[in-house]
């Protein structure tokens, strides 16, 4: 069964705007990972945040984690047309273990 739910399911923005998507999960976790998928291809790993971390940055990406609310958010700043993709969160209950995926957010960045 799906661990997480993502919100929104779809997002359409103009180039240069910020995109924010949220992920909720149900059980305790060891870490949460965000992935990008372009047009049904393989998953590209974006960022991993551990359960004892609250915020991480990587380039134009900012991820937050609130374990008390069992939720995470991914912010893409100054979006580009190339950011158009589906974004998935995935949780792991133990380091190096299997992932449970959220439903995904489809992001469209219009030039």
């Amino acid at each position, binding site marked *: 069964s*799906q661990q997480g739910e993502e919100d929104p399911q779809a997002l359409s923005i103009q180039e240069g705007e910020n995109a924010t998507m949220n992920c909720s999960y149900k059980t305790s976790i*060891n*870490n949460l*990972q965000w*992935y990008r998928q372009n047009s*049904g*291809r*393989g*998953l590209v*790993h974006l960022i*991993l945040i*551990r359960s004892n971390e609250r915020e991480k940055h990587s380039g134009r990406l900012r991820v937050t984690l609130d374990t008390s609310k069992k939720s995470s958010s991914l912010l893409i700043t100054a979006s580009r047309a190339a950011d158009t993709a589906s974004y*998935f969160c*995935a949780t*792991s209950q133990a*380091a*190096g*273990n*299997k*992932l*449970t*995926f*959220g*439903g*995904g957010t489809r992001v469209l960045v219009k030039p």
Partner: protein
Amino acid sequence: SAVISQKPSRDICQRGTSLTIQCQVDSQVTMMFWYRQQPGQSLTLIATANQGSEATYESGFVIDKFPISRPNLTFSTLTVSNMSPEDSSIYLCSGNSRSQETQYFGPGTRLLVL
């Protein structure tokens, strides 16, 4: 980071036949997994591929339908048996080591069953 390749990248198969998908990792990984992504959906874990022993299947997936092998630390196969159109999906393998939490994915195998 691990680089993972899969073969074939895509295939079109007839109902009732079987297809074996190969997954190769460029470095030794402790854990390897197989996921399915049905059209327009998210990823669902099929099983954990265990080296030298039977895979560990998730609820709803059985060995007779999805036999998995992992003869060594860098290679695994997934067979989709007696296929039906409902098996049309993208199948992805992934891997990571226990010392590295990041899980890397292969490019996926896009399967269409007619």
